[in-house]
């Protein structure tokens, strides 16, 4: 049976070139990068080389990058780090954070925690495509606002937020601008200077590096308070022994991603457009998210009268890996907050399917999926009491 992986939004395979680059750091250059001996110095040089590669990808400087354990930690450090550091500098009416209603839980739950400990948080609503309202953003800024955190692109529906405009608003009001760029990285050009981004979260395993490594960019001059106390690594901001193999992998993945950006984008966009066109031929199927302002690798659908977990399990039985925003497949049994925020009913959200393409997918994969999918949708509809066409 053909096996097709279309869940790159959940995780990507480690690129062969990335893996090769990492290997010596497990058993040959295994010294602690903080040690003074040659074993350590060699590993240290590799870490610093990776820092430069990560910085290059987003047009930052190496000393503006610190390594973390992944996207969630980067988001936590960005939001808590800046909030704790700056809370005494603002007015007395409370310290204000603005974010969006469709953030990844790493940002959303962190912001809810900030609310719990006394910060004020504004969760910006989004339109039917998942795009934030810029006027509402600007109107929400008060003299106590110190941070705007809006994702670069949404992890479920793939909508790309208006980064340039948000950056301008943040700059005009002297507010820090953080973005979770975990899904967008290596799928769209990112220049932190052009976009006025002050802090940006990076995750390795979404860009063909391993799981368990990530990075945070924060603009020179910005002060953060650490949330991880210990040996004082990364200028005291993130204590923990350097994960040198992982960091080397992240660096290589960023260098590859930069070199291949145009090639990858063209390839993914072609496949995505074919996937969307073919899938929408199914009766009562709809595309979620924005038709144009969406990630080149994201196709997100909903189908009337069927449920996403059933759909995913049946796809899996045909060798196809996908994802859904259905409540039935979530730990909380609640429909995806993103699908509800763009105005879908819970019923509509249950019938959702996310297909996220990757570098290794080929046209035949798309053809296979679009051959299999209509039959499965049909089978499930034929046993659904909600389908009586």
């Amino acid at each position: 049976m053909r096996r097709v992986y279309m869940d790159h939004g959940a995780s990507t395979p480690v690129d062969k070139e990335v893996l090769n680059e990492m290997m010596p750091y497990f058993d040959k250059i295994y010294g602690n990068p903080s040690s003074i001996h040659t074993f350590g110095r060699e590993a240290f040089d590799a870490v610093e080389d990776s820092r430069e590669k990560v910085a290059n990808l987003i047009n930052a400087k190496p000393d503006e990058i610190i390594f973390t354990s992944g996207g969630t930690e980067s988001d936590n450090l960005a939001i808590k780090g800046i909030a704790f550091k700056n809370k005494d500098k603002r007015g007395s009416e409370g310290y204000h954070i603005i974010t969006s209603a469709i953030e990844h839980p790493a940002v959303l739950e962190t912001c809810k925690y900030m609310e719990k400990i006394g910060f004020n948080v504004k969760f910006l609503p989004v339109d039917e495509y998942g795009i934030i309202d810029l006027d509402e953003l600007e109107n929400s800024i008060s003299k106590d606002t110190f941070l705007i955190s809006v994702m670069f692109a949404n992890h479920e529906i793939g909508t790309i937020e208006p980064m340039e405009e948000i950056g301008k608003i943040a700059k005009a009001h002297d507010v820090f601008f953080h973005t979770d760029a975990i899904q967008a990285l290596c799928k769209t050009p990112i220049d932190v200077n052009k976009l006025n981004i002050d802090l940006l979260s990076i995750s390795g395993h979404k860009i063909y590096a391993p799981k368990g490594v990530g990075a945070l960019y924060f603009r020179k001059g910005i002060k953060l308070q650490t949330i991880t106390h210990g040996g004082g690594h990364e200028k005291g901001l993130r204590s923990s022994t350097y994960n040198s193999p992982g960091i080397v992998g992240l660096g290589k993945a960023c260098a590859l991603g930069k070199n291949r950006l145009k090639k990858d984008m063209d390839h993914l966009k072609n496949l995505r457009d074919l996937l969307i066109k073919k899938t929408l031929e199914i009766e009562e199927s709809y595309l979620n998210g924005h038709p144009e302002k969406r990630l080149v690798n994201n196709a997100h659908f909903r189908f009337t009268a069927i449920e996403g977990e059933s759909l995913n399990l049946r796809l899996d039985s045909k060798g196809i890996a996908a994802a859904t925003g259905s409540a039935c497949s979530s730990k909380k049994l609640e429909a995806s907050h993103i699908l509800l925020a763009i105005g879908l009913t819970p019923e509509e959200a249950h019938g959702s399917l996310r297909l996220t393409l990757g570098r290794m997918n080929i046209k035949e994969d798309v053809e296979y999926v679009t051959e299999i999918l209509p039959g499965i949708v049909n089978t499930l509809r034929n046993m659904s009491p909600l389908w009586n066409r």
Partner: protein
Amino acid sequence: MENVDYTEKVKDHFFNPRNVGEIKDADGVGTVGNPVCGDVMTIYIKVKDGVIADIKFKTYGCAAAIASSSIATEMVKGKTLDEAMKLTRNDVANELGGLPAIKMHCSNLAADALHKAIKDYRKKKKK
């Protein structure tokens, strides 16, 4: 991490559901669930001499919902109405070799739908 795996029996009934469909001239029909929660189940029964002679179902929902509908129809086909009324949610889950804890409440509605269909039949019979 919690286990999200279904038992082989759940998978069998999900991928090869028994008794799917409608009975046009059913003697009793029972629908339970709510599309908002992601599960809706309808059970149709045909009764002869106090025995469930035929039974069909239609289910919208996750694999647990579909599998529990399928196995419940198998469990009560040929049984008397009184026997079928005694079928519980736990009986259905046990017959499937267990369901993930999180699915026990929302998706395991087959017994409820069956009881509703039987009550519907009894109500119609009284008239």
